[in-house]
């Protein structure tokens, strides 16, 4: 389990990954060739992975998402230190906040 700011990245066993996701083609990369896990709308700062891999969005714009890194990879962000990830599958979760009657996502 790894945390970069408002994003939590949890390793999951490949056997626990639902079959449709194993072969899903995944998200397109951004203009800089990165897989964007979360993007700040205003600053454009992003939690992003460089290098080989796939990001599969399960539902909704804020995830959760599955990340597959066949060779491991690095999660970068403009304001947080880089995190090195081993090879494997990960679940990516955005941080949220409680509000009476609603739950709001957090963006840093």
């Amino acid at each position, binding site marked *: *389990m*790894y*945390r*970069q*700011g408002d994003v*939590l990245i949890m390793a999951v066993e490949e056997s626990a990954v639902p079959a449709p996701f194993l072969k*899903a*083609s*995944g*998200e*397109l*990369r*951004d*203009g800089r060739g990165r897989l*964007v896990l979360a993007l*700040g*709308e*205003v*600053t454009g*700062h992003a939690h992003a992975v460089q290098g080989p891999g796939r990001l599969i*969005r399960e539902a*909704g*714009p804020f995830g*959760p998402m599955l990340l597959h890194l066949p060779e491991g990879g690095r999660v970068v*962000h403009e*304001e*947080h*230190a*880089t*995190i090195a990830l081993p090879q494997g599958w990960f679940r990516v*979760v955005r*941080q*949220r*906040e*409680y*509000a*009476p009657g609603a739950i*709001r*996502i*957090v*963006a*840093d």
Partner: protein
Amino acid sequence: MQHVNSWRDVAAATGAADRAAAEEGVRSAYRLAGLAEPERIVWAESPRAAVEAVEKLTDAGRSVREEVRTRPWAEERRRMYDELGPAGWSALWSATGAQLWETTAALAERIRAGVVADLAPRPTEEGAVRLVLLDAVLGQHDAAWLAAFDGRGDRLTGLAEVARNAGWWWPYERAVVISERPEVLHRDEAGRLDHGEGPALAYRDGFALYAWRGMPVPAAFLAELASLTPQRIREEENAELRRVMLEYYGYDRYLTESGAEPVHRDETGILWRIALDGDEDVVMVEMVNSTPEPDGTHRTYWLRVPPGTRTAKDGVAWTFGLEGAAYAPVRQT
């Protein structure tokens, strides 16, 4: 993905329209729909002013929104769906339109609600305003759909040209009413309308929306924020407004000045509880950013968690949808 980012900019664009380019887009959209070009193009300073201009139109003919926008979109979507298959279309949408959908749809809905509130002081008048709004093509706020179609055919180039250069527009047989873009747009990192010192969205003619982290607030409420006291916050009866007050005032400052005591402390942070009369307690976790700021300090931040939270770790874990026992990062930055 580069398309998404350029359309993200379109959705958030402010400042004067490029009227010549937008008008050429309008004429192009009519031609592509097989219609004669409109005889008149009327500019308005805001969507509110545009609705008023539409109500004053004479001899404009019927709405051609269906022919100009809806039908070409539906046909392009069908064509791409057939070409890409269900999985391909779904992947394309998730990589393009879905990224912009929530923020632009929410913004458009807020603008609609704002126009209705301004132009229909009595509930009986709302229907007429809403009917006019139904005829609108959303221009820059159609960015999500246009991002999905971008680069995949020429059929929607007129619509895209208007979207890149202007705000909402109303196509009728012989006339078009088109709105300028906002002058001011303030959003938070999640893309929600958000501004504490004035309107979050404002057009040149004064049509404006006020919001704090996406929540609509009255203009007068914002003016009061600068002079808040803990006492005033406690006395506020509207729970949502009180939440905004707390956020604006600063949880840390409020905690200090209201003499709150920490409830629990562990390696993940500190849990605080503030009792409020007639409302559920405010329970917050205080966390410290692991990566230092450029000046070497660590930024502290507070997130509200459910009132039943017992420990700081349970609270931090909840913010990521986990049980306390399951939360154990091996590395955090």
